[in-house]
């Protein structure tokens, strides 16, 4: 008897005997508006006020940074660039004024150099934007590289266990015990001159450890789940189990961890550049700007504040978005006891 025949026979048998929980149940149980997991997560994320505000601000900052002075040869709308020196006007003080006239201020005005000028007369707004571009670029590349490595190592260790796990996790432990800043500084000094992209990859090679541990933990628990056992019982090969069954169920954890990794990367890049191991002149980054003008803090504080403000804004908004994602992926929110 072929499957079809068997199926038809049994189906008619089941229905003929008035199988109680059959179609009636199906129709009824599904009368509630059903949403996919993804829809639920999206809905929760969009309702997370802090995350939404942060996301808006971050998008605005990214747009501002990349459109204002242009990027990769594409010209921007801002009149100055970040490398041509000019005549220093009024000790390079910012011309931006947000103080309205009725409160005794100068009224709203952008002026010639809203963020002021540096020692060489370069427009500080353009410089800050360039710094933000590089910092954001590095952060995202680090996020991608670190997540990839972390997921691969964590997944292998968590799925195969045994000596694979021991080897990979001991390696991870060794990486964790060495202070990140020290490794990054050594690598940064070697590769910092090779441009921000190389620097980003190098930092990514250092920052994956936390993610690897997290993913390993997820894999360890998911591989014992019954649906994974069911796949093994069907005869599925490891690659299928890893990519079709386990990995899709770790998307939430990976997304949250990657976001927080990006926030971390921004701070690490800042610290490295501040110490002189990161991005080098003539290019610039937010960390480098802060470091260059740390001595001007007392006399020309805007040279310190502007890049600082952007570092804080980017790091904070990314962190808030990470929090929002974590809340959105957390299934415990909807749990009701009965």
């Amino acid at each position, binding site marked *: 008897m072929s*499957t079809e025949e068997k*199926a038809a026979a049994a189906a008619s048998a089941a229905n003929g005997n008035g199988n*109680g*929980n059959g179609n009636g149940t*199906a129709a009824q149980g599904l009368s509630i508006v*059903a949403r996919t997991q993804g829809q639920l997560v999206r809905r929760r994320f969009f309702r997370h006020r802090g995350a939404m505000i942060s996301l808006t601000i971050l998008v605005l900052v990214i747009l501002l940074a990349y459109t204002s002075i242009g990027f990769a040869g594409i010209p921007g709308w801002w009149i100055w660039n970040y490398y041509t020196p000019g005549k220093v006007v009024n000790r390079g003080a910012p011309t931006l004024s947000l103080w309205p006239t009725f409160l005794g201020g100068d009224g709203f005005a952008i002026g010639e150099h809203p963020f002021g000028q540096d020692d060489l007369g370069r427009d500080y707004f353009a410089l800050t934007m360039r710094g933000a571009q590089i910092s954001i670029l590095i952060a995202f590349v680090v996020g991608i590289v670190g997540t990839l490595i972390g997921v691969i190592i964590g997944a292998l260790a968590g799925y195969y266990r045994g000596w694979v796990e021991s080897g990979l996790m001991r390696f991870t432990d060794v990486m964790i015990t060495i202070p990140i800043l020290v490794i990054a500084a050594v690598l940064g000094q070697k590769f910092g001159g090779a441009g921000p992209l190389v620097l980003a990859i190098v930092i990514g090679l250092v920052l994956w450890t936390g993610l690897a541990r997290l993913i390993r933990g997820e894999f360890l628990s998911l591989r014992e789940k019954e649906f994974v*056992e069911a796949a093994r019982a*069907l*005869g599925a090969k490891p690659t299928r189990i890893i990519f*079709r069954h386990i990995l899709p169920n770790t998307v939430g954890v990976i997304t949250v961890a990657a976001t927080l990794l990006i926030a971390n990367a921004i701070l690490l890049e800042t610290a490295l550049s501040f110490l002189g191991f990161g991005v080098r002149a003539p290019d610039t980054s937010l960390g480098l700007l802060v470091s260059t003008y740390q001595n001007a803090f007392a006399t020309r504080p805007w040279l310190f504040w502007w890049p600082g403000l952007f570092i804080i804004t980017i790091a904070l908004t990314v962190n808030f978005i990470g929090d929002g994602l974590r809340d959105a992926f957390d299934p415990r929110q909807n749990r009701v006891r009965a």
Partner: protein
Amino acid sequence: MSAQAVPTPSSYEHLLDVHDLVMEFPVKGGGIFRKVIGKVQAVSGVTMYLDAGETLGVVGESGCGKSTTGRAILQLHKPTSGSVTLRGKELTTMSNEDLRGVRRNLQIVFQDPYASLNPKMPVNDIIGEALKIHGLWEKDGLDRVGDLLKLVGLSPEHGNRYPHEFSGGQRQRIGIARALALEPEVLILDEPVSALDVSVQAGVVNLLEDLQDTLGLAYFFIAHDLSVIRHISDRIAVMYLGKVVETGTRDAVYNEPKHPYTVALLSAAPEADPNSERSRQRIMLTGDVPSPLNPPSGCRFRTRCWKAQDICAAEEPPPIDHGGGHLVACHFPVTDISKETASAALHAARGFSSGDPREGRQEALRRVESVESALDIAKGPVGGGGG
């Protein structure tokens, strides 16, 4: 006829034969290399068989190794020793590649309908995956999935929904459909209805019975619910701490239980009948199941058994046939249940914690107070009345 005969590959006696199956799990210590510091024997020499089209009910309490046995048969855990043969072919020594072929014939349905379906996959993919893995997915693949859904009493239109949109009973049906996709002969049902509400359980049990009738499936039905096991099984194996203590036909095990553990288990199961519940006398076992890390010597049940004697600690009782394949592994099989109820009560009373003999006696008196009902157990066994 004997369950212990090792079948030769060319001819086989039973569809599925499990012989002296042992399953050990290492216990790892702390430290860097996590050295193995001991082992838990979850299954210690289990021998049982399953014929085509029949249902073997495997009962026992948590930790008795019944689920591990099921998984070891499927080679989801590699058994430590022993043999599992399906149609005369030895599974324990097979390569993964060959096992993949065997798995078409041997499938499993899990207990927890919430954990056993991948939440990120729509139902069509969950059921169709089996076909894809075995290269059976053709143009009509979706239709076959639809047929399978119909087969388990669901509508094919629901195939593109995700598991969380279904109720527990429906999910369990999806799990059954997945197991049936490869047209197996043997289904291992690991507590398939334990996680479901009572009114839904009945529907799934009915479905399983219908499928067995139409598709000629053999069931290895693992459960702790004695009433469900009694309803669905042809034969029953009772497990305790990794061993089979009693096997036999359903009627033999339920009506004339011979192993003290079976007797106690049957007498402890509550039934939904207030009068018989209140009047009946239970055999109250003392204590809990011992740890499988350090099982008792000899008979493993002796630490809780009211009939235990020196020989029980010294010698492990072999399974003895009491007629019709009713195998009982006990030095002192039960013959008269009513008598046992009283002596078990007395035994429990003696072991009573306070150590005050008077209190123990009081306890014993209270326990044997309505001994008449114990006689009822002997006549019509547990669950005599019904609702």
